[in-house]
């Protein structure tokens, strides 16, 4: 059993599926001998050959479009966008085709592809390398959007994403690619693609988050515990479809909720969660639902990026605002 980082768990999942399913291919820019710019595909081309792990020309529209074509013809392409900032040229094909292939043809064709991309800030990367625009995908009917935040979940969710007969956008929080290691048995066991994970039980407030912000959110919960506040922490994990039940159940218990995400505030997935609380969860709420998010401004270059992203302090500030209400 291997002790793996999140990015190594991604590699292990890719290797498992490449090994066990001939129709799986990995493709993208630099995924071959270079093993991807984050080494997520490290060693895979050496092991499975260049017909299974394919370096592409530099053309994102092509990568998306061809993946859809391959998927419709019986393959299971796992395409990589090198960074989320370069995923936008792919949106057209993901929206117009990947998400609609099955619906459009009444099931005659379908599109079992995965689009992987590292996302999020905090690694001192250049412009466009620090985006969090998962909400764009989550709004599109026909796509699943999955974000792992631990090595174990990365492995199990990625396996499920590849096996899913429909398109899945799989976003990897690169700031925590190597945050810590965890035992990740290479057993091919997948995790469900429609549930949230309660990472920490609590009774006073529910903190909902995903991706790399799980780190700050758990730290905030620690500090709150020291102050005698019991925070429940939920990792949404699958952003779409959203496991509203788990979230509302938690808020039913705590009466309070703060949502934390790196993405810009307006129209982020935090809004959807808050909206669900304003509807089915309204009677549970003892205080306003606060969102601690990136600002509605461009993710800055790296000198300011940590100021843009929610910090433990900003989470604590929001929590104390919410707790003040009685």
């Amino acid at each position, binding site marked *: 059993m291997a002790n793996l980082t999140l990015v190594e768990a991604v590699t292990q999942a890719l290797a498992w599926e490449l090994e066990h399913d001939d129709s799986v291919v990995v493709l993208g820019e630099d995924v071959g001998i270079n093993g991807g710019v984050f080494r997520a595909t490290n060693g895979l081309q050496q092991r499975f050959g260049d017909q299974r792990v394919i370096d592409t020309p530099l053309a994102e529209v092509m990568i998306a479009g061809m993946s859809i074509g391959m998927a419709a013809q019986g393959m299971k392409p796992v395409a990589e966008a090198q960074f989320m900032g370069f995923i936008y040229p792919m949106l057209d094909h993901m929206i117009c085709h990947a998400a609609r292939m099955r619906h459009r043809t009444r099931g005659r064709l379908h599109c079992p592809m995965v689009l992987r991309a590292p996302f999020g800030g905090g690694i001192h990367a250049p412009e466009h390398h620090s985006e969090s625009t998962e909400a764009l995908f989550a709004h599109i009917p026909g796509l699943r959007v999955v974000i792992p935040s631990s090595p174990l979940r990365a492995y199990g969710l990625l396996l499920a994403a590849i096996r899913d*007969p429909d398109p899945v956008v799989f976003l990897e929080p690169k700031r925590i690619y190597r945050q810590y290691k965890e035992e990740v048995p290479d057993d091919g066991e997948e995790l469900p693609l429609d549930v949230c994970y309660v990472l920490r039980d609590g009774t006073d407030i529910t903190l909902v988050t995903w991706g790399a912000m799980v780190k700050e959110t758990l730290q905030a919960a620690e500090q709150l515990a020291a102050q005698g506040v019991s925070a429940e922490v939920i990792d949404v994990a699958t952003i779409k479809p959203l496991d509203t039940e788990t979230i509302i159940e938690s808020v039913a218990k705590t009466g309070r909720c703060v949502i934390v995400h790196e993405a810009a505030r307006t129209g982020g997935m935090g809004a959807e969660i808050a909206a669900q609380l304003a509807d089915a969860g309204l009677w549970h709420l003892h205080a306003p639902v606060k969102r601690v998010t990136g600002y509605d401004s461009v993710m800055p270059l790296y000198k300011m990026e940590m100021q843009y992203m929610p910090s433990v302090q900003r989470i604590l500030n929001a929590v104390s605002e919410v707790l003040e209400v009685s």
Partner: protein
Amino acid sequence: MSSNVAAFNINHYQFLDPSGQLIGANHPAIARDFDRLTEFYELMTLTRTFDKKAIALQRTGKLGTYASCLGHEAAQVAIGATMREEDCFAPMYREYGAQLYRGVKMSEILAYWGGDERGNDFSGPKHDFAWCVPIATQCLHAAGAAMAFKLRNEQRAAVSVVGDGGSSKGDFLEAINAASAWKLPLVLIIMNNQWAISVPRSKQNSAQTLAQKGIAGGLPSIQVDGNDLIACHWAMEKALERARSGQGASVIEMVTYRLSDHTTADDARRYRDNEEVDKAWEREPLKRLRAWLEASDAWNEDKQQALEADCVNRVNEAVEEYLALGYPGNEGMFDYMFAQLPHDLQAQREQALRELPAQPEGHH
């Protein structure tokens, strides 16, 4: 110091001239295979009959916006006739002639333009792609299909059609590049019908031909008279053979003319001269093939009468079938979104079935 590092030619091919005469030498065998030519002529005629009926249905409120294929029949039938069942077709939205050859039913075409997704679950090869409205995107789906065939070592080709307008789009140009990078078993056809809605070919770019876009990827690239069934057939055979035998992709510009409005929602008189259209009619594909068949004693007026009557009957039957299709049912909004409906959509489905009328008002 200058040295020449690459040289390219674009050639134009025509075998059957507008008057129906075989011209030049070295004609492909198909030029005298009258059984097959007759078969093609019959399908071209059926295609045109169908097209006319579809427009009539739209005008009488029985069909939504419809994209006519008037003038494209030779090119389309040549595509359909040269492809094998196991090849994969990624059409744009008006390739009915090719699709009818491949087994798509006229009632299915009508269903699609009649606003019913069931039209896309057609009887043609189950692996063919659906009609594609976002211009040029289909070229990359075909490239992906070709990639799948190549990776699996299958002797199959993928074929895609794009318009003169669509040939300006990055998707098409990236498909050329992909085909070049991986030597894909792919045939990219530019159906140059001179117009992209109201925008004439000359505004797409100032290059001599559209075929030369294939040079960007070093692909064999030719131009053919798209109203000449024999030239189209010959070019397709060559390109498909190339593709299936592992030699890679080709680009074929088929030069034709959109004799109709862009769609039934368009009025071409706003932007193009009648004179141009009249001149284009002189080059249209059916007349010249018929002339060649007649000159070769393979066709006559009696056969023509019988064919026309038969086409009308078949089209009418298809229309009946289409009109009998009925409302798909509200579940149709949900049940094909995913192999397994997620819980959120399940809830929406339940509410929809509860609160919606079983059919929209005024559904006929």
